[in-house]
């Protein structure tokens, strides 16, 4: 595990989706080489029967019971910076299915589209292209 070449730096940058300038590549090559040379100290350690530690809480598969609740959205949904959910417990046996356009506590698709600041066409919000096709 010796020097990290500039070619390897470019390869890793590609994996990490990082665009680097040529000067950055040269600098990283020497800095990373020094760092990885330091890491070789771990070769001294005998880890034959040692298990890996990925976290220190000892917790496994933390679960929570699924609770059926209703979801009320504030009337100023469009103006608030985030929905204000009011959770309430439904009785056991009460229907959990709310019609998309029914029930007074669920916003329909049309109502959501009305909140859009961008124009809507055929029930879809038109967004500006991020990549200009040449």
């Amino acid at each position, binding site marked *: 595990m010796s020097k990290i070449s500039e070619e390897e730096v470019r390869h890793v940058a590609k994996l*990490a989706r*990082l665009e680097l300038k040529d000067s950055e590549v040269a600098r990283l090559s020497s800095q990373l080489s020094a*760092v990885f040379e330091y890491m070789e100290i771990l070769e001294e350690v005998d880890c034959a029967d040692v298990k*890996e*530690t990925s*976290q220190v809480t000892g917790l496994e598969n*933390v679960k929570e019971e699924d609770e059926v609740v209703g979801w009320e959205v504030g009337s100023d949904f469009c103006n608030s*910076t*985030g929905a204000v959910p009011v959770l309430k417990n439904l009785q056991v046996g009460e229907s959990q299915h709310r019609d998309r356009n029914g029930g007074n506590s669920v916003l329909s698709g049309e109502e959501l589209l009305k909140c859009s600041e961008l124009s809507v066409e055929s029930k879809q919000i038109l967004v500006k292209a*991020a990549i200009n096709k040449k």
Partner: protein
Amino acid sequence: MANLNELTISELAKGFRAGKFSSAEVTKDCLKRIEERNNELNAFVTVTEKEALKSAEECDKVFADYMAGAKNVSAVKSKNLLSPLFGVPMALKDIFNTRGIKTTCCSPGLRDFIPPYDATVVEKLKAAGAVIVGKTNMDEFACGASTEYSCFGVTKNPHDLSKVAGGSSGGSAVAVADNMCAYAMGTDTGGSIRQPASFCGVYGLKVTYGRVSRSGVTALASSWDSVGHFARSVSDIASVLQVTAGQDRRDMTTPPKPVPDYSSFLGKGVKGVKIGLPKEYFGEGVEKETRDVVLAAVKRLEKAGANVVDVSLPMTKYAVAVYYICMPAELSANLERYDGIRYGKKPSKDPSDLVDFYFKARGEFFGDEIKRRIMIGTYVLSAGYMDAYYKKAMKVRTLIIKDFEDAFKKVDVLVAPVFPFPAFGIGEKANDPLAMYTADALTIPANAAGLPSLACPAGSSTAGRTEVRGATLTGLPIGLQIIAPQFEEGRCLQVGEVV
């Protein structure tokens, strides 16, 4: 009454309930101090003056109602139902989500990011009546030990303006050290609370991993990050911890461990407490003056009745290598989301396709240190190298944890220096990242094992003269740390009070 910004949480809590001053008056003094000092020190990146004064006014209304409604005035004083934090001004490292207020992690790409929700810790503190005066400067994405890697410039050490404040929570440390607020929140992944606390001469607590919720706190290395805070007294540290600690259903790494009454550990003294000095933390890599200051403090603990024994943590010398393999690996995964689409801006130059979009956006998003660490992380996780580096490091981490388990069979707490030397000059270490990394050797092991550690001011370095805590420090502060087993923050507080 002038200079209310210099009072501790306990003093403010007493004063509020005695009607001596109001939260609005204290907050105004803090804001005045920030206005006077922040241009020079650069501790705050956002000052929330309007919101702070509004919160303070609301707190004052509650106090007034509360006092008027109480029939027995002494009952109000003795059994306060409001948290000691009620009405007290504080600051948040800019890594904690604050709804409606910019949260930038001091990264170029997140300069204009406004979160739509509060971090759990912020919610808890607001419910306890915290008055938030602003967001503090930090190393970008908490990666650094000097607060020099911030896109908003360096934070200076109030004891010597040519020196760094430490990092990554440098802004929070300075806010408390320079009396800009009574306490401040930070995070500690490899030493980022304890080291700036040591550099600035204040108390800094790194909690047990999982003691405080990390929901709404930008993740750096998810199995190493700990939330914590700075304050000017141990009793203040206890007051804040009482509010922030506890299980949170939004953070699956917070176990259902009960939160003790931390104030019960104060005033207990150290008679019979077994203190271990890990010999690897007092070796040649640590400057003599630092060692002397810490050992002098240990002598004071011994005189107060503690039993001091030597212990050994042989895996200490591998901790930096383990950390700088595992942490960048986790960081590179956590930072994948910053792609110029979900967060940040699209690139300034037109990309040719989506992948090119990511390259350019991310190239412009991050500073140099972050790019360096993403590269290290990506490398150690790449095919062909993962076994040799990442898996090996995870195994050595197990051995580091075992070192502590063995030591705590013999002693109650460990006491050691926080850093090999006091605050260094601004710009001094900028070109030698490896030197910066290896200096974290004394703080990293507690993060590897998820242990709590309290940094306490122990003295200062003034050409051989040692100042005891309480006397005016004229040199650079030197701190020590008190490490305890998981969830035993109480022991840290008990011993820290006596230092």
